[in-house]
Structures are given as C-alpha cells and as structure tokens.
C-alpha cells in the first residue's frame, strides 16, 4: 500500500509516530526522516510531504491513504473518504480579531486566512457577509489594516499573534486518516486491517 503523511515544515509529529507505532506500523524508518521523503518499509511506501500535496496525490490515486489535518479537509472538501480521527495534533480553527476596538462588527467582515473556502462557508452559513482574503501567514494582516480579523489555527495565532483575541470557534481539528476513492474499492482488505489496528489503539488509550 502507498501511504502519505502530512509533514508541514518538519518531521512527522511525535504523537502521531506513537499511535502508528502502537498499531504496529514501521515507524522506526520515519521518525528521523527529513521531508519531503519517500520511504520503503515492509513492502509499503510512505510519502512524507506537505499536507496539501499528500491530499492531492491521494485524490488522484498516486497514494492509497493519507494522514492529513482536518483543517485541510474542511478547506478543500476533496471527496476523499475520511475514515478515522487519530486524535493527535488537536487544534481549533478559530476566528480571531484585535482586542477591544470598541466598534461593532462591520457590515462586511474582511478576514485574512489561509482557509478562504472555510471562512466563506462559516460566515455565509450564518448569514454574515464576509470577504475572505487569501493570506498565508495571517499574523500581520490586522496590524496592516488589511483585515478586521483572521481565521486560522488557534495554535498558530497563539504563537505568532498572541495579541489577537479568539472570538469564535469554527471547528475542531486533528489528524485524520483518509482514503482515496479508488483505494477504498481496490485495497479494501488492507484498508480494513489498517483501520482496525488504529482503531483498537485509539480505543485502548
């Protein structure tokens, strides 16, 4: 089977390696890897690459399964099958703004975000007008006067822009096991084993 691990800016997180290891997967080869990397282990190949790329490869059948963040799945809505919540790398997608500017919400919110699709759906779904502004590192956007607020992962905001105040939680995020549409049919047996092993680790913990 061909598996992909989302590694954005570093090796796979230790908590994920722990879960995979407990499920009997060959993690020794991966722990010290330097992404992007392609690792062969026990007859499987593991691709360590940025989440967005891993997801694309999975969707197009170049990978059978992938472990990626829920934030990415929410943004891309890629039509892969989300099989399991691995409950590691817990985080929240939040809407945060500048503290106490005294003015109410403007009629049309300008929101800087790496997640423009999510942002649109969240605000428009609640009947609020929003202008999502695609922005990779959101920390500076409010200070630049570019946006009224940001939608980003809570951990990122806390680290890069602690002066921003979280106003709303949009969704809980964690790493998820997903399968491509073809893999779901063509590797069903292997996939069932994998889900079963990971599930028993999660339920035991």
């Amino acid at each position: 089977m061909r598996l992909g691990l989302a590694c954005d800016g570093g090796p796979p997180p230790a908590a994920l390696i722990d879960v995979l290891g407990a499920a009997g997967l060959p993690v020794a080869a991966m722990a010290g890897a330097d992404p992007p990397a392609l690792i062969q282990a026990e007859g499987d190949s593991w691709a360590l690459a940025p989440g967005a790329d891993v997801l694309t490869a999975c969707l197009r059948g170049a990978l059978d399964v992938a472990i990626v963040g829920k934030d990415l799945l929410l943004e891309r809505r890629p039509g892969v099958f989300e099989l399991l919540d691995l409950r590691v790398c817990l985080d929240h997608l939040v809407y945060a703004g500048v503290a106490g500017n005294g003015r109410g919400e403007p009629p049309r919110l300008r929101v800087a975000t790496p997640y423009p699709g999510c942002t649109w759906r969240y605000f428009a779904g609640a009947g609020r007008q929003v202008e999502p502004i695609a922005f990779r590192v959101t920390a500076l956007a409010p200070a630049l006067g570019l946006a009224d607020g940001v939608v980003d992962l809570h951990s990122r905001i806390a680290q890069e822009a602690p002066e921003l105040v979280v106003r709303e939680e949009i969704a809980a995020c964690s790493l998820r096991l997903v399968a491509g549409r073809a893999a779901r049919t063509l590797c069903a047996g292997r996939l069932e084993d994998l889900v079963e092993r990971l599930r028993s680790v999660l339920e035991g913990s």
Partner: protein
Amino acid sequence: MIPEGMRDVLPPESGQLRAIETALSRRFEAYGYGEVRTPWLEYAETLEVADDDTLEAGYRIHDQQGNQLMLRTDMTVPVARLAAARFQDKPLPLRFYYVAPSIRPWAPQRSQDGEFVQAGAELLGLRSPQADAECVALLCDGLTALGVRGFRVALGTVAYYTALVDSLGLVDDDRGKLLEALADRDYPLLESIAGKADVSDDALKALWRTLELSGTRDGLAQARKLASSDAMKEAIEHLVEVRDLVAEAGFGDAVVFDFGLLQDLSYYSGTIFEAYAPGVGLPIASGGRYDGLLGRFDWDIPGVGFAIALDRLQEALEEAGAVPAAAPATLVFAGGLEEPARAGELRRAGWAVAAVPEDADVATRPLLRRQGLSYALDMAGGDILTGGWREILRALEHR
C-alpha cells in the same frame, strides 16, 4: 492560447482515442444499443430539471430571442429529454448509447478536462434487477474487451443508506447534518452526530463499519444484520440479485458490494455503481438507476445507465500497457505528389500514404523515394531497397 482546462488532441493519441471509442461502440451495439447524438446546446430549463449541483457552474449563453441556452454538462439528461420527446409511442425497453463530449468549467481538483468525452449507455423502461445487471455486465464487458486489467466495480444503492439514516429515528436537524456528513464522506463527524443523538452503541458501530469500507469480507452480512426495515431488506436483495446476474454473465470477480457508495448526481434513485482501475484515483466509469428522471419530462418510466470517462479510461489502459494501436504507420512517398496514380495503388494495397514532393527533405521512416526511373524504399531499421515499381510493390506486400 486556449481557455483554461481545454486541450487539443494530436496524433497518435487521437487515433488511440478513436480506436477506444470504436471498440466501445461495437460492445454497445452487440447488446442492441443504438447510437444517439444530441445537440451541444439545450435550453437551460431542460438541463435544470435534473436538479444537479454540477449544473450551477455550467456555461450559459443567450440566443437572439433571449432564451437561455446551456452547453450540456452530461449526456444522461439530454438522452432522457430525447426519449420522452420522441419515443413515447415506441415499445419498451429502449436502448441508447452515445460517445460524446460534454463540458463543465474546469476545476483543478476534479482532475478532469473542462471538455470530456464519455461513452455511455442508457436502458429505459425496465425496473428490474436484470436491467441493472445488464448495464453492469455491459460496462465490465467493454472494459474487459479493451484490456483494462484488475478493475473493480463497486455496487451500492441509494435506497439502502437513505433508509439506514431514516431508521435511526433522528430529528430533522440531526438527520440533515448526518446526510451532509455522509455527502462529505466524513465518518468521524457521522459518528459524533449519531453519538449525541443517542443512537445505540451497537447499531452505531455496525453502521459505520458498513458504510466506511467497500467490498470487505463481511460487508453484505453486516448490511443484512442492520436491515431493520422492509425498504432496506428489499434494497439489499435487489443488489444481491444484480450481483448474481453479473456473475452469471461472467464478471463475478469484478464486482464488490459497497453499501457506503455515494454518487454526486442527485437524480440517482436505486442501484448505483462505480468502476475503478489500478493507477487511476477517480472512477473510470459510474452509473446507476434514475427512476424519477424521465418523469420530469412527463414520461414516467424507469431508467438505468452509466458513462465511461474516456480520459480516465485512457490512463487505465496506459497503466495496463493496453493502449490500442492507432492507425498503421504512414508510408511517406517522396515523389508521390507527382505520381498520384502510384500513390493510389499503394493505398489500395492497404498502406496509409503521405505524398510529398520528390525533393522533400524527409527524415521519417518508412520512406519511399522516387529516384529518376527507380525507387528507394527505406523501412525503419532495415536496408534500403532500390528497384523498379513492381519490385517495390512486391517488397511492400511482404511487410
């Protein structure tokens, strides 16, 4: 420059595509399907009866009278329109096939060209599992005839999972969220909604196991165990009958049950299926039963059909090393333009001949060149044969 998502098809790929299209057409005709061709443009209101999300993005234009027209986004709806308009007095069933392009605005995630060719078949007027089975078998037959190896057809039913969700007895709000999660293929979310809605733990576990994987060892047994209503039992037995009939037709190995199979088109009403081939991430073909669709054109008859996406099929054939040969190699005849009769003689002997002027600078093989009164024949990899016209003809006959 051409618009985003569009492409040109060049030789030899165009020849390979033609060979694929011809081979599939022969299979469709072998089952008694007749070819239909429908116009590129339909009235927007005609296509809109399908109530399909993909239409939202379709290309629209206005004619001189101000009517809104639309470039077709698939072929099933035009075929339904055509059948209801022109065949109401004909005996059922009706069998139509098409090999035709449709067009949708390009989206890079969808991994499909903006203009895409589909080869499809529609069987109208039969509600039985036998009709579903014929379509699945025809699909398998076509893929096998072309040499696609290791493909699988996932067989599911809309009737089962909607009944399953109904059987959980959720309030409308939860039910809506659940169906949405199902459409997004987000099983952890399903689990949490059902968890909050107080569905019994056992029922829940069994439910997700049934939905989350396709073709697993005990999928059918699980599905039967979960079937709490007559509608669900009927849906399962209908599908089992389809599978058995497809097996009788000789394609049992290719078919797997998938009770979690979902289709993006909203007009499907019963059996649905998707074909997957190694190396291609998205389905190479998909189809299903759409019993309500013709009713929207005032002819309430059932229908079932499928469409093969030729670009993805081509990928699968490349993966399997089974791309059909395009036309035979072209013999370039330098001097053939000056001697049309002799070029014609070669063509009647079965050669594809590209005639160029005698002094043309040509590097491709095979090459035939007139040299004064004699000819030089240069086949790829062989010696150059020089001689009179009769000698050359004889040599070419033995190739």
